[in-house]
């Protein structure tokens, strides 16, 4: 008896029992189910939710690998810098090294494991209690979470946040497909407001910086946004910023790989090109407005907003988490706008508000996650007006007819 037949007979044994969804969730990872059509059309397209989610994960893998190496690289680079040695980043010289990988894997993989372990456990429990199949939504959330937190976030905090995010952010609304807020961002927002000292400042972005603080070996690693917000000069050049040799949350640093992932997602039609395009436009427009304000001389160099306002608009797009947010988070179909017209507005406003919050928020100079959460809340409103336009047209047609 082959594996297929064995699993089939176990599945038949579980049928109708409480634990059936838990077994089926594992079973369907190995084999697509033997289910056939029972109502409506007799054939179905090949795409299912697992494939959709899997495609997003594929698009995230390069970013994760980069994040692992970068965690190690930033750690050693910061130690060097503290000792007065300036490193010149080179891809194969000192980036893709065994040391960096060991250090990065040692810090990043536990985040991935905790995120998936805790999150899927919650999903399984809810699926068994509510008696529905385990939905795939968390596959992507679980991968996003470790990529949008600082490397040194304590694992227990992450676990608490994941439980909060999945239960309050998703399950209380009815589970996958029903949530209003992006679950991964809910988790990040929880961490941000519950444990702010672990989520911002200049001591959290490089592994070991917090532990070493106050010791003779102390070093720090500030994000570029942090430097700009304090009107400090930035030591990184364009290539560093674009390719990602910079400190930041695990997955957000390499704009280059994020663009590749974004192109892949748009090509596969999994992510909405409408949202991505309009978000980039929105961010550029806001950036241009701020640049204009600076050019007009309305804001002096003494202003605390000067640093970020004077940052060229295109640079805003490649520093911080905005690229990651636009490509992987804003495109979440459940919490985003659902109509095609609505997606343009939704994306545009995310980009627009991201840069606005980034500039005007002195305490924590990154706005994309707040902007996306804000627009998550307004997405149904946007859709409402789009759909109402269609409804009004239909009413008008009726009136023309009767008049």
């Amino acid at each position, binding site marked *: 008896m082959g594996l*297929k037949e064995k*699993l*089939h007979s176990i599945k038949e044994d579980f049928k109708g029992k409480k634990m059936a969804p838990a077994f*089926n969730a594992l079973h*369907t*990872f*190995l*084999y*697509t*189910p*033997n*289910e*056939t*059509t*029972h*109502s*409506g*059309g*007799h*054939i*179905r*397209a*090949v*795409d*299912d*939710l*697992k*494939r*959709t989610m*899997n*495609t997003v994960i*594929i698009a995230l893998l390069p970013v994760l690998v980069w994040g692992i190496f970068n965690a190690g690289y930033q750690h050693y680079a910061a130690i060097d810098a503290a000792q007065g040695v300036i490193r010149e980043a080179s891809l194969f010289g000192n980036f893709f090294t065994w040391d960096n990988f060991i250090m990065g894997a040692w810090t990043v993989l536990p985040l991935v494991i905790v995120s998936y372990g805790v999150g899927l456990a919650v999903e399984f429990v809810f699926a068994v209690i509510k008696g529905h*199949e385990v939905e*795939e*939504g968390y596959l992507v959330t679980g991968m996003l979470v470790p990529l949008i937190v600082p490397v040194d976030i304590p694992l227990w905090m992450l676990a608490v946040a994941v439980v909060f995010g999945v239960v309050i952010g998703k399950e209380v609304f*009815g589970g*996958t*497909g*029903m949530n209003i807020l992006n679950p991964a961002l809910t988790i990040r927002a929880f961490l941000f407001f519950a444990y702010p000292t672990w989520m911002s400042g200049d001591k959290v972005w490089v592994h070991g910086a917090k532990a070493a603080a106050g010791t003779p070996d102390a070093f720090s690693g500030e994000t570029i946004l942090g430097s700009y917000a304090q009107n400090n000069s930035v030591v990184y050049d364009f290539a560093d910023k674009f390719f990602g040799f910079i400190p930041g949350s695990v997955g957000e640093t390499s704009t280059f790989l994020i663009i590749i992932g974004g192109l892949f997602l748009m090509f*596969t*039609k*999994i992510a*909405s090109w409408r949202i991505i395009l309009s978000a980039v436009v929105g961010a550029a427009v806001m950036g241009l407005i701020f640049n204009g304000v600076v050019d007009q001389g309305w804001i002096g160099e003494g202003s605390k907003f000067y640093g970020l306002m004077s940052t060229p608009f295109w640079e805003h797009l490649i520093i911080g988490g905005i690229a990651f947010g636009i490509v992987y988070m804003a495109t979440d*179909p*459940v919490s*985003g706008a*659902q*109509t*095609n017209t609505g*997606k343009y507005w939704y994306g545009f406003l995310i980009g627009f508000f991201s840069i606005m919050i980034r500039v005007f928020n002195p305490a924590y100079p990154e706005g994309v996650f707040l902007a996306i959460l804000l627009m998550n809340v307004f997405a149904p409103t946007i*859709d409402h007006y789009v*759909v109402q336009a*269609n*409804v009004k*047209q*239909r*009413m008008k*047609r*009726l009136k023309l*007819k009767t008049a």
Partner: protein
Amino acid sequence: MSKDIKIKKGLDIKLVGAAEKTIADAPKSRTYVIKPSDFHLVTPKVLFKEGAAVKAGEPLFYSKQDERIKFVSPVSGTLTEIRRGAKRVITHLVIEADGTETTHEFSKLDVNSADAEAIKERMLEAGLWPFIKQRPYDIIAAVDTTPEAIFVSGHNSSPLAPDYNFSLKGKEAALQAAVTALAKLTPGKIHLSVAKSSDSVFNSLSDVELHTVTGPHPSGNVGTQINKIQPVNKGETVWTVTPENLAIIGELFLTGKFNAERVISVSGSSVKKPQYYKTKIGAEVSTFAYSAGINGDNVRMISGNVLTGDQVNADGHLGYYHNEFVVIPEGDDYEFFGWNKPVFNKISSSRALTFSWLFPNKKYDLDTNTNGEHRAFVVTGNYEEVFPMDIYPLQLLKACMVEDLDAMEALGMYEVAPEDFALTEFVCVSKQPHQAIIRKGLDLMHEEIG
């Protein structure tokens, strides 16, 4: 005058096993079955007891909702069985054919001189009325309504669709008689849509407004055409008739006889020799299925097309409205890592490691596997790509699921039929039963609003 309708959104599902353009007489069927479930929302009131002799074209039962709507026997023979299901609902009326073809005859009616009342009356008494469907609700037309217009789609864009130009060849006179008659029942027009090209059987018809449709499926769906030509407003009714039923209607006016003959296509990847067969409404599917030959045992037989038809067993019968019979493999098997490996042999509307976008002209051998399990609605924007009507499909489906009548009405529920959601159902990542959701929504509206 001809007008062009261009459809851009949609998806042509190209399948293996299209019917060859040859015609064969199906072996004579021993029994014929009329299933009242084919007539949605009709409660039958049977006119005969079991064992009674009936003639072809003689009313078997009428609708409890409107006694004037009669349903006739396709053949002459004996009503051997009235099969009932749960709650004693009549599920099958079985007629054993006697082979004599005794027909219940009417006098001929000159459609050119007859008035609307006479035409209506003849259609009702001769059992032709069930062929007229109405929107809203996609049910048999209410007798006393006056339709804004009547729509006929002479272009079938569904997968493995039979070619009307072939199956209706020689029926031009009957078609003409039918449209001339129906034209008197509406103050509007009869809109007839045909595919481009073609010296089609429809091109020479008068009394119709001819439209040319181009584009992928569902360009041939009458619902799509209504939406583009003259969308249904609240309070309005339009009628739809399919061409093969037009031919039956016309023939009755010309000859006085109800001719239940159908030229159907027998197709699908599991059919050995896919071709056209001449048979009758309600005939045993085994008569033509085994004549054409079936590959393998584990197959699904479908009366109707693969997107909207009904599953039938090997001892089942052709549906009342169906002019297709399709056999495809059952897909009740597991597939190892089917959800993440690259796929070349199935159709996809995305490009997520699925490569059907590379081969737009390839024909596929699809089975009945759902390729995934039922999930909540997650993905957005993919229905719109295959849904050409000026309606928001996802929002309408959700309104139906929460039974929000106001929203359903506002979002265009009066304009749709379940078949319009066959393609969104096909591409649905969450494997939701769209057609069933819409049908339920329509029934609810019909019950609450009427």
